[in-house]
C-alpha cells in the first residue's frame, strides 16, 4: 500500500512535471503563431504595395509610350527645319520686280517651300508667332536687345520658332526691346 501510494505520487509528480513542461511549449507555439501572423500581414501589405506600384508603373509606361508616339517625329522635324530656314532665306532675296531672272528662278523655290511647309503642317508642325508680340520666354529665346518704345516686346524674329503639336521644339530667336 505504501509503495503503491508512493508510485501514485511519483506518477502525479511526473504528470505535474509534464504539465509544467508543456506550458512553455504551448506559449512557444502561440508565440510562433503570432510571429507567423505578423509575417503574413507584413507580406500581404508588401504584396498590396507591390501591386499598387505595378499598376502605377504600367500607367506611367502607357503615358510615356503615348507621349513618345505623339512626338515621335521630333528629331526628323528638327533636322528638316534648317532646310525650311534656307528656303526662306533664298526666297527673301526676291524683290518687288517679279519678272526678272532671279524671280523666275525663285518661283520654283517658292513652290517647293510651300509644299514642304504644307507637309510639315500635316504632321502638326506650326511656326511660332513672334513679331510685335510680348516676349514670352517659353516660346522665344532672346538673342539681342535694343532700346524700344515699349519694353519686353519682340521687335524682330531672327529665326523662326516651331511647335510640334503643343511642344516647343525650337524657340524663336528674337530681338527684344528694353
Amino acid at each position, binding site marked *: 500500500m505504501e509503495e503503491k501510494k508512493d508510485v501514485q505520487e511519483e506518477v502525479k509528480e511526473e504528470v505535474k512535471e509534464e504539465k509544467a513542461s508543456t506550458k512553455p511549449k504551448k506559449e512557444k507555439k502561440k508565440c510562433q503563431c503570432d510571429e507567423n501572423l505578423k509575417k503574413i500581414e507584413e507580406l500581404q501589405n508588401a504584396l498590396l*504595395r507591390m501591386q499598387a506600384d505595378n499598376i*502605377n*508603373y504600367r*500607367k*506611367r509606361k502607357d503615358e510615356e509610350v503615348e*507621349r513618345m508616339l505623339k*512626338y515621335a517625329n521630333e528629331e526628323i522635324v528638327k533636322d528638316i527645319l534648317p532646310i525650311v530656314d534656307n528656303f526662306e532665306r533664298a526666297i527673301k532675296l526676291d524683290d518687288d520686280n517679279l519678272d526678272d531672272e532671279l524671280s523666275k528662278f525663285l518661283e520654283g523655290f517658292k513652290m517647293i517651300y510651300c509644299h514642304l511647309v504644307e507637309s510639315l503642317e500635316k504632321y502638326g508642325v506650326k511656326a511660332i508667332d513672334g513679331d510685335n508680340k510680348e*516676349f514670352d*520666354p*517659353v516660346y*522665344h*529665346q*532672346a*538673342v*539681342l*536687345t535694343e532700346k524700344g518704345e515699349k519694353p*519686353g516686346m519682340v521687335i524682330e524674329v*531672327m*529665326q523662326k520658332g516651331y511647335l510640334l503639336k503643343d*511642344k*516647343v521644339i525650337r*524657340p524663336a*530667336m528674337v530681338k*527684344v526691346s*528694353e
Partner: protein
Amino acid sequence: MSKTIGIDLGTTNSCVCVYEGGEAKVIANPEGNRTTPSVVAFKNGEIIVGTAAKNQMITNPDTISSIKRLMGTKEKVKANGKEYTPEEISAMILGDLKKTAEAYLGEKVTKAVITVPAYFNDAQRQATKNAGKIAGLEVERIINEPTAAALAYGLDKQDKTEQILVYDLGGGTFDVSILEIGDGVFEVKSTSGNNKLGGDDFDQRIIDYLADEFKKENGIDLTKDKMAMQRLKDAAEKAKKD
C-alpha cells in the same frame, strides 16, 4: 511609402531620376527634356526655372546661372531687389526637379539623393543638403558624382578590386576621378579637373576656327554679325555632337 528621387545638380544642367522596374530612369521635364538648365530668373514676382529662364537671360538682369560654383561660400547673389544665398537659389532648382518627379510619379516626393563633385568639401556638401531641405526634400544621402557614374555602369557588381577612372566633361566643368572599387565599397583615390573648362569651350574653339576660315576665304568678318554668330554657334555645337 514615398519614393526617393536621385538628383544630379549640375553647374549648367540638372537632371532627376527615379528607381523603377529595377533601374534608374531619367524623368523628362514638362517641356519633354531630360535635362533642365540650372538657371533661375525672377520676373514680376514670379520665379522661372529652366529653359524659359535661360531663354530670357539677356533681357533680365535678375537671372542667375552657375550657382553651383558658389555653393558652400558666404557669397550671396542679388536679384529681385533681394539677396539670396546659393542654397536658396539651388533650392529653387531642386524644387523644380521635385515638381517634375511628382508630376511623373503622381505622388508627393519628400526624399532625395543628390550627387556632388568628389572634390566638394564639408561646407559645400552641407550647403547642398541645406538646399534640399529648403526645397522640402529630406536628403537621404549625398553621393560623389564619379561614384554615382560608376554605380550607373554597374561597376559595383564585380568580384575583384579594381581601379577605374571616371571622366566627366560637363557643359562648363571638367572632372576626372580615380576610384577604387572592391566588395561594393567605393573609395575616391584622387580627383582633379578644371572647373572653367567644358563643352562650351569646345564649341567656342570650333566657332573661332570657322569664323577665321570664313574670313580668310571670303573676307567677311562674321563676328560682327550677331545673327550669323548665333547660327555658327548652333552649327558648331551640332558638329561637335556629330
